[in-house]
């Protein structure tokens, strides 16, 4: 079993708890031992990067330092935004010795161990869609969602900027499709699957954000999807909880369930309904999905 430092992120620890519980239940089946990080703060979600770039760098270096102190080589995320923020800071610390020296000096002043740059930040999606672990995923998921039409929605910060993320071609990614395939579902292709869910500005610029989230919802609906699957808690909340407002603004109804990748695989892998927590969704997941839950 591979040990990883598990960075659930804020949304999945709180308002989207269902993602955390699903991931914790699923990961051991996929050969991953999740080790908690009790000292890990928020990554800043792009907001601190924008407002106070230097503080952002130090904040994330402190998180990476904890992972390094835990003796693991991988920090695992289940959120696009955490992935970009941590990877960006990590690259900066690894690539530039002067920066590393300066940040480590400050970390020492604050009583934090220095970060030497030995940790790799990986999204859960990346860890289970390649190599042996993907073979294991196919066995675990066992194609049990046969006949389900699933619309993959990547969101932004797991694809772009590719020079920081770089797991797959940002214009024709396949990892979510591979997961859907392992679960036996049919992946729906639609243009908005690579676009933005609008969540970062849903409070500051609500109508702009709602126009954005309307695109994947309407396209998935048009193409007959049973649900949308996403690797990101922000996309998850935007598509699920803001769906009602998007419907109102667009003057139409979507009734589109949204599942995080851990929930979709969990559903196929027979993870307990008490961990999948579909009752916490704002948009009901509907009969087809509820019937598939092992109780």
């Amino acid at each position: 079993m591979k040990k990883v430092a598990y960075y659930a992120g804020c949304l999945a620890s709180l308002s989207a708890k269902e993602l955390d519980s699903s991931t914790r239940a699923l990961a051991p089946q996929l050969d991953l031992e999740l080790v908690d990080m009790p000292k890990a703060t928020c990554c800043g979600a792009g907001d601190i990067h924008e407002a106070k770039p230097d503080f952002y760098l130090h904040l994330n270096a402190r998180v990476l330092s904890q992972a390094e102190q835990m003796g693991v080589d991988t920090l695992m995320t289940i959120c696009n935004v955490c992935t970009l923020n941590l990877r960006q800071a990590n690259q900066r610390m690894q690539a530039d010795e002067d920066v590393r020296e300066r940040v480590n000096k400050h970390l020492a002043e604050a009583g934090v161990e220095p970060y030497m740059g030995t940790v790799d930040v990986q999204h859960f999606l990346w860890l289970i869609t390649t190599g042996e672990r993907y073979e294991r995923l196919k066995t675990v998921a066992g194609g049990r969602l046969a006949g389900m039409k699933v619309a993959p929605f990547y969101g932004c910060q797991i694809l772009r900027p590719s020079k920081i993320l770089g797991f797959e071609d940002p214009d024709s990614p396949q990892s979510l499709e591979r997961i859907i395939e392992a679960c036996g579902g049919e992946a729906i292709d639609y243009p908005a699957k690579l676009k933005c869910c609008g969540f970062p500005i849903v409070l500051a610029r609500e109508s702009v954000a709602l126009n954005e989230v309307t695109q994947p919802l309407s396209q998935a609906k048009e193409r007959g999807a049973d649900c949308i699957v996403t690797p990101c808690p922000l996309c998850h909340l935007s598509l699920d909880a803001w769906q009602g407002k998007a419907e109102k603004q667009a003057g139409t109804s979507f009734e589109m369930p949204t599942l995080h990748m851990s929930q979709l695989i969990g559903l196929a892998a027979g993870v307990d309904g008490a961990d999948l927590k579909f009752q916490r969704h704002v948009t009901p997941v509907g009969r087809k999905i509820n019937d598939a839950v092992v109780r």
Partner: protein
Amino acid sequence: MLVKLKIWRQTPTANGEFTRELVDFEVETFEEATLLDCLDAIKNHQDGTLAYRKSCRMAICGSCGMRMDGRAVLACKTPMKELVAKGRVPVIAPMGNMPVMRDLVTDMGDFWSKVRAMTPWLERASQPLTGPDGREHLVSPEEQQKITKETMCIMCGCCVSECNSMEADPAFLGPAALAKGYRFVGDVRDKRTRERLEQYNGKHGVWDCTRCYFCNERCPKGVDPRDAIAKLGAAMFDHGMTNDKGAKHAKVFIDSAKGRGPAPGSFGIEAPGSAILYNGHLSETALIPLTLGPEAALPGWAGMGIKLGKKGKVPPPWHGAFHRVQGLSEVRKLWNVLEREETAERRGGDLEEPVVPLPPNIAQGVRTQFTPEQIFEKTGAVVSEDITSGGGKLPPDAVDLGSYYGGDTVVQRFVADGGLERDHGLSGPVPENYAAQQAATIAAHGSKPGAGATTSKDA
């Protein structure tokens, strides 16, 4: 190499509508052909009515932005070889987020209005001139480095074509204009920084960006407009401009990570006990009221709160007290150390890329405050003391090109033979006396373009 393309032909009709048709083309062309070469071949030999913009053919002019298989590219910077090898037949379309005029030509009127709205020129009326002669403003390499990426923009529109926020709000200033804005905000010679930031801070300004990063991904020149927008946000924080909802939103993230902050409704004052709202994770309890202010009580948001609350998605205010991240005092110490250290130089600093040192000759010329005589001694270059007549260089033999360019290089050979060795790509014979003409020009004025004014020290 046989290149197959599908091109969207779009022709305006009398009633303002368009006829749209996806037309197949095949072009027999050379191995290294770019998309633009293929379009040129079609226009020259197959269908002269095909409309697209182009000029320089070398990714400098920014004219030939268009979409290939849904992604914005510069046609002249897009080789076709790999696609052909894969047997792909790409679909060529005009850029997005702009009205189409005909075929691949878009109306960039809105694009240019937004760029103009940034007042894209230096204003330095009150700026003291710091040069040794009191007539120029010296810029250090470090200062220049802050805006180097933004100055690379060629205004092609590829970023705007893909901007997800502009799709949702066409009035958004957008990545190209805002990157241009940062190019002046970050320029130490410009004195309108504060006014500029106020201007870019409005309803359709900086905080409209949804961070989809399409602009960074598509930019053919490495400008990374999203990073420029983030730098504008940081500059706004440095100037205390935190009135926008977007900035208030960011402030809650900072307080959350520090584990200290004001309670909603406390007018920003940190009362004892308000820290329980902030536990190291994002305080969802504080985020909505502090971002929205009184608006949070309006029916739309209150209803949303109730809806989320029913599903357990609104944590109670005391949640933070029981789920505190460990070691938050370390984070606050870091914050304090950085606040103390913050200097004007680091404001809006570029976090994306390590600073690339400038070539020594440029760095030397810009950094140091040498007199013209000293510069002549060091480089052999003559700098005119009379700024109004422009600068110039001595004949090339006075300049040690070997140390500039490192040995026998194309540049040296180019200078040596008056440019004859270079393949100009021109058809027809080179004029017989071309070499002699070039040599005479260089002997008289030096090898740099723009020479010709009588600027030599000896003249």
